[in-house]
């Protein structure tokens, strides 16, 4: 076993285990933190495969931005775990049955698959050739993204636009009965708007 292989298996095991923990731990904050660990080990595997740009982006975007926001939301919401777990036991036998069926079928197929078949037919399983130190992964990706994949790239941009429009359409609402302050009006208010001086004759005591 080479050093790279040892690293790969170490990170891969960590990734699978932490992914398992994401769905098994009871505390949602811990679950989110385990997801962070999954992403970090995944980015390490990408580094082994010499895809350093993807590895960095995964850490920056997912770990740095998305998961932090996610943690905020999880911590702010009071999630009732007991209610979420309701019915877990009663559905468990069905779940295990279906999972077992699928697992059995997959195992059957894999058992009948010739190992040499995989090597010749899954060409993408070959390790990538090593590159010189000054090789820029980012440049390579950028070049492909804006030339070969320009059409899918544009579509992805449209999807992001639609996501923004949809999110705003679903959350931004101006309720007719909401009470809110208008600082502009508050500042511009004059004495006459609020105070009414009523002149009246003093009453005589009789």
């Amino acid at each position: 076993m080479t050093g790279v292989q040892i690293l790969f298996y170490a990170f891969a095991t960590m990734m699978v285990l932490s992914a398992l923990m994401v769905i098994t731990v009871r505390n949602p904050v811990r679950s989110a933190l385990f997801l962070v660990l999954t992403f970090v080990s995944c980015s390490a595997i990408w580094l082994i495969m010499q895809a350093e740009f993807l590895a960095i982006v995964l850490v920056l975007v997912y770990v740095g931005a998305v998961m932090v926001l996610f943690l905020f939301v999880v911590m702010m919401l009071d999630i009732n775990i007991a209610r979420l777990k309701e019915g877990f036991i009663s559905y468990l036998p069905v779940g295990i049955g279906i999972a077992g069926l699928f697992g059995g079928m997959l195992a059957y197929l894999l058992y009948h698959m010739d190992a040499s078949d995989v090597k010749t037919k899954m060409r993408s399983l070959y390790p990538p050739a090593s590159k010189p130190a000054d090789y820029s992964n980012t440049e390579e990706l950028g070049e492909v993204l804006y030339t070969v994949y320009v059409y899918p790239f544009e579509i992805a941009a449209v999807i992001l636009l639609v996501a923004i429009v949809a999110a705003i359409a679903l959350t931004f609402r101006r309720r007719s009965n909401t009470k809110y302050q208008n600082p502009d009006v508050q500042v511009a208010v004059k004495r006459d708007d609020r105070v009414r001086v009523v002149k009246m004759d003093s009453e005589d005591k009789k």
Partner: protein
Amino acid sequence: MEFIAAYLPSAMTNDATIAQLPLAMPEIILLCMACIVLVVDLFLTDKTRGGTYILSQITLVALIVITTMTFAKQDTIAFNGTFIRDGMGDLLKIFIYIATFAVFLYSKSYLKARDIYKGEYYVLGLFGVLGMMIMVSAQSFLTIYLGLELLSLCMYAMVALQRDSIIASESAMKYFVLGAIASGMLLYGMSMIYGATGSLELSTISSEVAAQQQNIILIFGLVFVVVGVAFKLGAVPFHMWLPDVYQGSPTAVTIFIGSAPKIAAFAMMMRLLVDGLGALHVQWQDMLMIMAIASMAIGNVVAIAQTNLKRMLAYSTISHVGFIMLGVMTATKEGYAASMFYTITYTLMALGAFGMIMLMSRMGFESDKLDDLRGLNHRSPWFAFMMLIFMFSMAGVPPFVGFWAKLQVLKSVVSIDLIWLALIAVIFSIVGAFYYLRVIKLMYFDTPQETSGIEAASDLRLLLSVNGIVVLALGLYPQLIMGIITSVI
């Protein structure tokens, strides 16, 4: 990277890409117009919202004209093998525009009465059309998936657009979760096929698949791809979302989900299974056959038990999807043409049936119960007749177009010597005729619950009449569409 680079389509020069832009002219125009509608809508008030509506309709009409004028005579693959312009795609696109045009027109007064007459409905609708167009003319896994996501995202948001309705939010949630699972399945399958063939491009995949048919990884991937497609089409056993979403959404959104996206889903099935994985047809024929039989059985039988018209139409959709799959299952040109004919004509019928619900609904009254149709003939003989056309056509009664659609599919099934399968399809169609005929019985032989006439905008009445007459006319002259379909497929 070296390995990947070896399998990348060779990058074209920028000039070559720019020279190919006119091929995607309809997509580009729609994208620009959708953005313009988005911005213009900001400056409109609820009173002048008609501007958004008119602008959207003008866009769709312009697209119909442009695509018809530049109708593809031969197949052209562009943008490094991610895009294809062919006759089948153009024909399907034209019907998508027509269906969306009808959807917008049908739903206008419905939206106004329910306070969801918002620019977002039209913007999301137009972006949804863009997603469908991308799916229809996709030539690689990447574009199929991106188009599908664009369409799905628009539909999830549209279902939830009526924010104060709990049932709409619930069905949007269901739709979103199940749609995400389906997309996951599809992606999983695509990744396996990519692993085996080393390409995302359908033409390369097609030749690679033909060279290594016995590769178990390909069959593995195929299963997941078929599951993803079946989810999106709503075939049994992946149909559970359909009735809930149809019933829960506002009718204006149900009519959108139930019409044009079916055409896009059919195109996705054709691109993936026929164009990409055609060499594996022995494998997917069995899968489609089982799903088609199950869809026809469950769709037709469960529809009988429904009292809600929208839910009944959802189950009827499931049974029609079974027929559409049956045609593709034959893996012959006649079968594909029959399925395409079925998809297009089904869309026209579904538009009419949901249009009827919107015609009869008014503020605070949904009119989506079967009982609401009671005695329609006394209230409006003309629209009762229109509904009769749609129901007879869906049931497959001649001379309406639904009969020809069923006949074409059955003919193609018989031509590959699966007579027993055709018999099963006929038996379930007869079972299905029960609930279509029940609607007609309610309309003509029952006494109405209310006697007031039907009040609806004149444009809605006109379109519904045209829709009914088209279903009748195509039934009398099915060659009008069938001729074009056989020439493009």
